[in-house]
């Protein structure tokens, strides 16, 4: 079985986001970049499936050289090899085109992604890739099992989250999935993994298309909230009154 895991390199979740260059660029000063938390779930499940069923796991990132520490970390966690498409990820369509082009060459049985990137939060790349490849896309996936039978196309058993609940799904591979917890526990690389990751192949390729359909022209920070109004615990009832008369929301 061949698994492709698509990962993003994104600001750590504790980052206070700020912009530079007249609000046109993310300020990267002092920012730690991490694997997208959802992509980390996808990778962890891919490595588990490899251990359980036997599989090759390839990690793919569309991004500049600054994403390589994140890619190496994925290799240390258990991916076998990696591909970086050397291009600035301009919009979801552009990224999806790069991923689909690589998938067409390599016929993966399973393409695992995060439910959404935590920078743009689009949750779109998996669906566009699915459409481009003409295969189903399912997100957000909470549980994933693949049957061990290798006679025909394997079947995936999937739990997907929906509003206020979940649904159980079944589909034949190949599939594109957007993953979230509790699909697997995040994995931390061990010393041996870190050592072997250094020599695992990381192939850099150039972008195959240039379509950018949505351009970001600028950024903005949310306005600061006004000062907090404190209410004494003994007078908690006042809050309900204020929500009705002052905030007018109940």
């Amino acid at each position, binding site marked *: 079985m061949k698994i492709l895991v698509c990962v993003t390199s994104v600001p750590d979740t504790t980052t206070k986001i700020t912009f530079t260059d007249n609000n046109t660029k993310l300020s990267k000063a002092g920012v730690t970049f991490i694997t997208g938390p959802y992509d980390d779930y996808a990778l962890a499940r891919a490595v588990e499936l490899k251990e359980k069923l036997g599989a090759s796991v390839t990690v793919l990132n569309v991004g500049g050289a600054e994403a390589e520490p994140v890619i190496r970390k994925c290799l240390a966690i258990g991916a076998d090899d990696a591909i970086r498409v050397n291009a600035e990820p301009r919009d979801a369509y552009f990224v999806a085109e790069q991923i689909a082009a690589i998938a067409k060459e390599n016929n993966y049985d399973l393409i695992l992604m995060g439910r959404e990137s935590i920078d743009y939060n689009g949750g779109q790349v998996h669906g566009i890739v699915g459409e481009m490849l003409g295969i189903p896309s399912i997100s957000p996936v909470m549980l994933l099992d693949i049957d061990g039978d290798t006679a025909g196309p394997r079947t995936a058993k999937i739990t997907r989250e*929906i509003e206020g609940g979940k649904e159980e799904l079944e589909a034949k591979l190949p599939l594109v999935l957007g993953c979230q917890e509790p699909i697997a526990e995040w994995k931390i690389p061990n010393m041996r993994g870190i050592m072997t990751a250094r020599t695992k192949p990381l192939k850099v390729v150039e972008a195959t298309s240039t379509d950018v359909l949505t*351009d970001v*022209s600028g950024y903005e920070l949310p306005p600061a909230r006004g000062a907090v109004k*404190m209410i004494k615990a003994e007078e908690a009832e006042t809050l309900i009154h204020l929500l009705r008369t002052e905030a007018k929301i109940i």
Partner: protein
Amino acid sequence: MSVLVFAEVENGTLKKSSQEAIFYGAKVAEMMGTSATVIVAGQSDNSALAEAGKYGANKVLHAVDAKLNEPNGMAYATVVAAATQQEGASVIVLAKSSLADAMTARLAGKLKAGLAANVIELPDLSNGFRVKSSIYTGKAFAYNDLKADTKILAIKKNTIIVEETDATATVESFTPALNDADFAVTVKSVEKATSDILLPEADLVVSAGRGLKGPENWGIVEDLAKALGAATACSKPVSDLDWRPHHEHVGQTGIKVSPNLYIAAGISGAIQHLAGVNSSKVIVVINKDPDAPFFKSADYGIVGDVFEVLPRLTKAAQAL
């Protein structure tokens, strides 16, 4: 050149988020000097569909086919793509939902469309097609220039305040060609809390964290939610510990909500939690620790014990 809005019908009426999407779509149509058409797939009463007129749509296309009775993002995307072509629509509006999320990307792929997710304002058409969206999990906004001929906007809850009129929309049936490949995923079972107010749709949310000490104490959270007509939510550790179901978990790695009111009880206010809730209109924080970081992001705060404060609030809410 028209605007097409995908709407969902639930329990015999247009979902609240869909009403908002229709109103938004009608406003965009007005700005473009054109009209808004709504597309609904699956079984539904004509009366529910005609209601789309109240929110500004002229016409509703109703795609009926036994195969469309169960919501299916891929098949619905095929339907909407066909309707886009028939109507010559250049803008497609959807309200974010688990169904719409499964459709927008497939649609963008089919139509080679520009796409903005988490849209929070009407577009600015003065120089191309620019729209503001929420990014970095609510920590910032982006201005997106949509350059393709077809544009898809997935709007967040509370993007626009809906105004109703008495108008009704005409309903036409629509029979697009369906694609077998869209039915390759089999739904084995669905588990859904039906009676409760669903979190992503809720105007009011009462949320609680590890400060509640254990799942057996959630009664006081549910009581307040019930008294206010609010949905319940929780922090990540609470769902990790299985005190509450995963679909109630809000934040960076959970559901992102933007209700009118978010009450946080016994939640410290970690940045990853704030990320999912900071676009709420009014935030109330109840915490026994006066230095809890959440107070910095609150509009109203109460320093106190949740086990005393929540029941007092419930009583006061019941007395309204």
